[in-house]
């Protein structure tokens, strides 16, 4: 059976959860229920459905957006935090859809950083572009990102002139965004392109700049190199004809991308990145020949539309292989947003609690930053190193600096914290009521069922019976007989308003959930 054969079985709660965890940020019980019993096609229909564009971020103190301002506001340094909160909010509250995860995939792929671009309006526009094309056409996206105002700033495409070409974008376009760099087979020859191709591509891309009033790209013919551009044998010695018209910049960009996308290496490169983002880091020769190469062909056969590739990859028997489930380490946003969703924490309402809504996600933002996944602030042009840096890959997310704060997250969410409305000074507690949470599972009075149900809810892989036993006897009920739980639970249910009884049993349950969230098993997905 080939690895990309369609997964034949109906989704169970476990396989539905695997699909949801990988394509979204954690899985809620409602989403798992919705996909359980569905065929893989039906599940992917739901996940791959086009979504309407979300409303733009606003300043929660005024309720107004700034994204269409014609002048950068002096509050821009605050707006970037609102925009980060806005995106984390979209991740946490989206319906069943791969859109936000794919938008994050493209954000990692076409990296950017506020510290370089320096204008939140630009980054908003880029985020809209990525989301609009998240499930669209790779070649279209590559074209639009090449003249995206934020990208023009980030990689200095706006400073690339015929008199002194600036090769920053031309290099990364090839090395990281499209064809990918192969082995250096001789000086300056990276198999898929050469150093000379970098310089030549830079010439084809001369003349673009950005307009900070309209936040758009502008082409200046008088800064454009109108001579022909001759590429190396890696590109079959292609010549891009130099143009001298108002559309020269776009025409030559299209020619350049046509040349790059003609190479099979380009479609295979992006499929390898999708594989590492959604499936596993390890691209063995078997994975290369049985997954990457055929996916690349699917991409080309479909004129670079992304959906058919995602459908084939996420709907494959390989994706549901026992060795794939749990093979990834949760990226910080998988961990943080996933935790919020798994715990069904009540998020302030965006309509009538706007300030608290923003304040809630603004308080999650520094956690993501500490764990090294700060959106709109990629560490460098290659994106987060967990997706490319051999040999550790996802293990880079976890080290002695990040593991202690990761392990503390459960504690933070269970203990809750206070949100403040900056404008009015009003406060609001966000909490997690483990007792309410537990009641949605059957048999909350049975301690073994409690362990079973919570284990299933929180972990990507099953724990062994010894591990469950330890959770029961050492964490939930240390030095107590198992029936103690049943007695206390029934007591509490009889008098749910008895604060003392409630506190007693809640402390036990909180301790169990905190422990579950700090063990290594919780870190994988």
């Amino acid at each position, binding site marked *: 059976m080939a690895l990309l054969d369609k997964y034949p079985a109906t989704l169970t709660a476990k396989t539905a959860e695997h699909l949801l965890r990988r394509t979204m940020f954690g899985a809620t019980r409602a989403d798992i229920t919705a996909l359980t019993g569905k065929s893989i096609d039906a599940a992917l229909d739901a996940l791959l459905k086009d979504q309407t564009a979300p409303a733009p971020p606003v300043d929660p103190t005024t309720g107004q957006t700034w994204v269409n301002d014609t002048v950068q506001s002096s509050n821009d340094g605050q707006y970037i935090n609102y925009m980060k909160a806005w995106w984390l909010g979209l991740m946490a509250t989206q319906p069943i859809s791969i859109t936000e995860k794919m938008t994050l995939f493209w954000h990692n792929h076409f990296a950017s950083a506020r510290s370089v671009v320096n204008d939140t309006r630009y980054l908003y526009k880029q985020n809209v572009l990525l989301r609009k094309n998240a499930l669209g056409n790779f070649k279209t996206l590559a074209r639009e990102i090449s003249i995206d105002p934020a990208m023009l700033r980030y*990689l*200095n495409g706006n*400073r*690339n002139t015929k008199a*002194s*070409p*600036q*090769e*920053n974008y031309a*290099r990364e376009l090839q090395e990281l965004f499209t064809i990918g760099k192969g*082995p*250096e*087979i*001789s*000086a*300056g020859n990276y198999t898929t392109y050469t*150093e000379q191709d970098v310089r030549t591509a830079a010439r084809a891309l001369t003349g673009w700049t950005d307009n900070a009033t309209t936040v758009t790209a502008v082409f200046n013919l008088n800064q454009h190199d109108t001579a022909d551009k001759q590429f190396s044998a890696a590109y079959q010695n292609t010549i891009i004809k130099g143009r001298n018209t108002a559309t020269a910049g776009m025409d030559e960009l299209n020619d350049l991308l046509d040349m790059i996308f003609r190479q099979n290496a380009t479609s295979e490169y992006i499929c390898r990145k999708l594989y590492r983002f959604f499936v*596993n880091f*390890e691209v063995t020769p078997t994975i290369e020949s049985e997954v990457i190469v055929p996916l690349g062909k699917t991409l080309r056969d479909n004129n670079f539309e992304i959906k058919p590739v995602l459908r084939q990859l996420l709907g494959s028997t390989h994706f549901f292989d*026992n*060795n794939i489930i*749990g*093979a990834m*380490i949760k990226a910080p946003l998988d961990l943080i947003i996933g935790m919020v969703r798994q715990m069904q924490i009540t998020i302030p309402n965006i309509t009538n609690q706007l300030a608290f809504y923003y304040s809630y996600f603004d308080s999650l933002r520094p956690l993501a930053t*500490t*764990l*090294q996944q700060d959106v709109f602030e990629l*560490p*460098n*042009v*290659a994106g987060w*190193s967990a997706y*490319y840096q*051999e*040999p*550790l890959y996802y293990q*880079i997310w*976890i*080290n*002695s*600096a*990040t*593991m*202690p*704060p990761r*392990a*503390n997250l459960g504690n933070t969410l269970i203990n809750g914290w206070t949100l403040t409305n900056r404008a009015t000074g009003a406060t609001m507690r966000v909490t997690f009521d483990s007792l309410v949470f537990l009641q949605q599972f059957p048999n909350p009075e049975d301690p073994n069922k409690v362990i079973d149900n919570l284990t299933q809810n929180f972990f*990507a*892989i099953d724990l*062994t019976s*010894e*591990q469950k036993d*330890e959770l029961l006897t*050492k964490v939930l009920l240390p030095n107590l007989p198992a029936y103690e739980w049943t007695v206390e639970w029934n007591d509490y249910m009889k008098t749910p308003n008895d604060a003392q009884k409630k506190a007693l049993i809640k402390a036990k349950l909180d301790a169990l959930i905190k422990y579950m969230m*700090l*063990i*290594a*098993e919780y*870190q*994988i997905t």
Partner: protein
Amino acid sequence: MKRRDFIRGATAVALPLSLSGYSARAMGLSPMLESLAELTAQADRYLVLIQLAGGNDGINTVIPLDQMSTYNSLRSNIALPENKVLKLTNATGLHPSMVGMKSLYDAGNLAVVQGVTYPTSNFSHFRSTDVWMSGSDYNEYLSTGWAGRYLDNQFPNYPGSYPNASMPDPLAIQISSTPALVLKGSVPMGINLQDPEAFNRLVSGTSVNGFTTTPDTAAGKQITYIRQVQAQSEVYAKVIQKANASAKNLATYTAAGVNPLADQLAIVARLIAGGLKTRVYMVTLGGFDTHNQQVNATDHTIGTHAVLLARLSEAMTSFQQDLKLMKMDDKVLGMTFSEFGRRVGSNGSSGTDHGSAAPVFVFGKAVKGGIIGANPSLTNLDNGNLKMQYDFRQIYASILKQWFGTSSSEYSAVLSKDFTQLPLIQGSTSVAEEQQTFATNGIRVQNYPNPVSTSTTFEYTLPYTSRVRLIVVDAQGHAVTTMDEQQAAGSYSINFNTASLASGAYTYRLETERGWASGKMIVAR
């Protein structure tokens, strides 16, 4: 006396002939002094690696004052005014913002190694960073770092049997939340942290006991890794906190939060003074990818690059002063590295694109201060890039042997080839000593005819297999041509075309791994 086996049989592949075109000071150690250095090597010698991430513009860091007209014409929009450059010698100076490092140089605590890169340099940030960190050839892919391999060799069976009485402390510490390849051995050999106090506080709240079983799947491998990180964090958090708390910085650093490198080095100094036996520290200063506006348009001595170099200089100077006051300065050696230098000619946006060779700084009380190598030629270029003068692994080799006193077998666990050492540490030989040594080794070189018209022949006998460089230097000290290749023992006659040389006096030098010899010739037509 132990005799060094410089060439390890099969690994001695023939190097391609390259014309690197630079003069070079004699290098290498006399066998006697080398073994003395080895004898005095002690366990309490520490190394601090400073990564300048992004690719530092070497030519605006160490300015070739002997080529100012070329310099000014190739980079007029970023050129530093000659009268502002901090002169180290008549021919060489530092960027105006490197006042502190100038004083380190004057005190003999700073060595500048010119023109460092590797053959067939790669212009990708990511690949070139991997090459530098792993210590590989351009076409060799290693999944471990050079310092990681050194630590793996020195501390076998890490982490299983550590900490122990002889090594109670972390082997390496990186002040960052993203582990670097350079410290990766068979496992990551270092502890990552941002702040010793917070590290201990967080770790103490997340202690995990129990779970040891793992499934035999990819998920199981991740779980094992995560548990290892948890255990290592817990084991070392206390010793790190204790060391940090027991020491105070005695020198003044830039105010916290302003200069990230100073913040990191202040922690390193405390940990060293606090008594940690940690062998290697790693810190990073980012932002060197100066494609765009690396200088202020009207005053080239200020701007992005000036700020970065000021940070480097201030942090290094405070650190060195701190160590001196702590009386630890004879135990610590530091070195900077960056993935590449930048293009000689600037681009149109007052910046520089990716280049190749650049200077490396080695600092510390034990350092043999001075400049190693000649100014790079700004005219004799490889496709616009500086030519290699020294392989970066010559510096690693020198540190391993002269600083850490590794034996031959220990050395070969780190670097698979021999690299000619540079006299970086005091106690390595002076030029005069080397000359004497080489006289004893019996190397002679001569040329005929002399005076020379249009060609001459160099003759020499090589008593051993060695990498051999033959360098011809004009009266101004510029190397005009170089032969560089691996040669077997035997007699050689090298024909040398002098038709393009101006009339005048030249010196030539034959360098081998065990000695060098020189002569003079006159070109007269």
